[in-house]
């Protein structure tokens, strides 16, 4: 069992409240996943700049990282440290170089996400505590996805928590378990796509990234997933300007959606949606099995 929440805002007036609304939804889903939690937020696009969110077991190792990385890539790097995570801002064209440099100057750090707007925060612990550590309620943005985890397929670790990001500004969260993740992991490796953890969900994320690299849209990649991913899943995925939902054909993992003129919202249970503005008059429905839903800005 896991909990998923998602919010895709249509009304710009709600953007300052994205973190606050997602946090409330996430905490309501604590019963479904008390061992770890994570959130991906799509913030404002600063032209010409990209963000790298990195995680360190020991936050003391962040000291001087902006300077050291700046020297390596010969550009100015700014850094915002939030508990065990740091968001590095650097020129857009330098992301690949920075990731390579990071491996040599801080080999123990892990990249949570990379992209123009995405930031991912995830840790072991109760969702409420995780949200507090990273001050999630103050985050602003256009859309966001949160996950509360009850681990089944791999260990309870920070890196095993969701969301998983395997491509620029992409992320995926999952409720369920995949049964063909090992064979798919090998298939992806042959295509040069590396999956960092033992987690089944990361394989699904990498699969979608690979499909999108081959030119498929988010919707098309999800359609391909119905054929190639075996197991139980309710996925919620994010891209720079998109938000998608897919359930497996058996559809035993719960999902509720709500849409108003202001937002599209996703919850594993309706409980997660009850505090959203105007929910009483929202169109509320259960997404159909093996049916791709996606929205773009």
């Amino acid at each position, binding site marked *: 069992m896991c909990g998923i929440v998602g919010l895709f805002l249509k009304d710009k007036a709600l953007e300052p409240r994205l973190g606050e609304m997602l946090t409330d939804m996430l905490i309501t889903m604590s019963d479904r996943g008390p061992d770890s939690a994570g959130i991906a937020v799509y913030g404002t696009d600063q032209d010409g700049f990209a963000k790298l969110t990195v995680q360190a077991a020991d936050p003391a190792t962040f000291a001087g990282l902006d300077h050291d990385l700046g020297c390596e890539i010969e550009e100015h790097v700014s850094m915002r440290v939030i508990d065990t995570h740091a968001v590095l801002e650097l020129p857009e064209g330098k992301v690949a170089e920075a990731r390579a440099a990071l491996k040599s100057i801080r080999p123990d750090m892990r990249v949570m996400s990379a992209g123009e707007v995405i930031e991912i925060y995830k840790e072991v612990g109760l969702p409420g505590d995780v949200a507090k550590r990273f001050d999630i309620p103050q985050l602003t943005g256009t859309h966001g996805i949160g996950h509360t985890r009850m681990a089944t397929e791999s260990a309870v670790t920070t890196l095993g928590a969701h969301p998983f990001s395997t491509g620029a500004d992409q992320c995926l969260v999952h409720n369920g378990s995949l049964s063909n993740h090992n064979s798919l992991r090998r298939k992806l490796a042959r295509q040069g796509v590396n999956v960092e953890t033992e987690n089944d969900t990361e394989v699904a994320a990498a699969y979608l990234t690979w499909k999108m690299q081959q030119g498929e849209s988010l919707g098309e990649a999800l359609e391909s997933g119905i054929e190639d991913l075996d197991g139980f899943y309710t996925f919620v995925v994010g891209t720079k300007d998109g938000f998608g939902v897919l359930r497996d*054909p*058996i*559809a*035993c993992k*719960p999902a*509720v959606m709500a849409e108003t003129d202001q937002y599209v919202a996703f919850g594993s*249970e*309706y*409980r*997660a*949606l*009850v505090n959203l503005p105007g929910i009483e008059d929202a169109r*509320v*429905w*259960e997404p*159909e*099995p093996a049916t791709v839903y996606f929205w773009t800005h």
Partner: protein
Amino acid sequence: MQTFNLEENGLRALNEALQAQSHQTNETAWEIVKPRGSHAIAVGLDAPIDVTVNGSTGYYCAGMNKQATITVKGNVGPGVAENMMSGTVIVEGDASQYAGATGHGGLLVIKGNASSRCGISMKGIDIVVQGNIGHMSAFMAQRGNLVVCGDAGDALGDSIYEAHLFVRGSVKSLGADCIEKEMRPEHIATLTDLLERAGMDAKPEEFKRYGSARKLYNFDIDNAY
């Protein structure tokens, strides 16, 4: 009329109060406000009382009901009226998966759509759905009637025993050992009664009946893989 604010007073107090009602109770009308999608609302009731839930609920609403009439003015989560024994449960919105699962008796009315596995392993309950139902509905259904005014999804009545299925619209596919059957006068009579009790204005003649071909009852080597 007793009004119970679930957000303020909590689920345990609600179910204790409802379960404490006896056959002779004078407090026959209850209204639950602020359900906020909570699970297990009004479960295990055993008295002829009327309970109205003003809003949508989570999992297992009205589970194990005996005698009570429970109306939900909203949508319900998975497992509404699961294992109902008697009484009536009315859902004014949609129902999530396995509505009326394993029900032994009583009437479940869903005015919207029901999703997958509606009436799974039903054992005597009557279920009337005004809209559509999802895949694998009436899987291993043993007794009772499932009436669908809209369409049915894939694998309707898979491995069905002796339940009666009536569908007005299309059936995407029938499950193993489920076949269309002749609608005889006794079936029209049953259907007329159920539609009337559920307050549906559909004509019984517009429905088709489905049930067991009874080919899975005994071991048959041709069924083995």
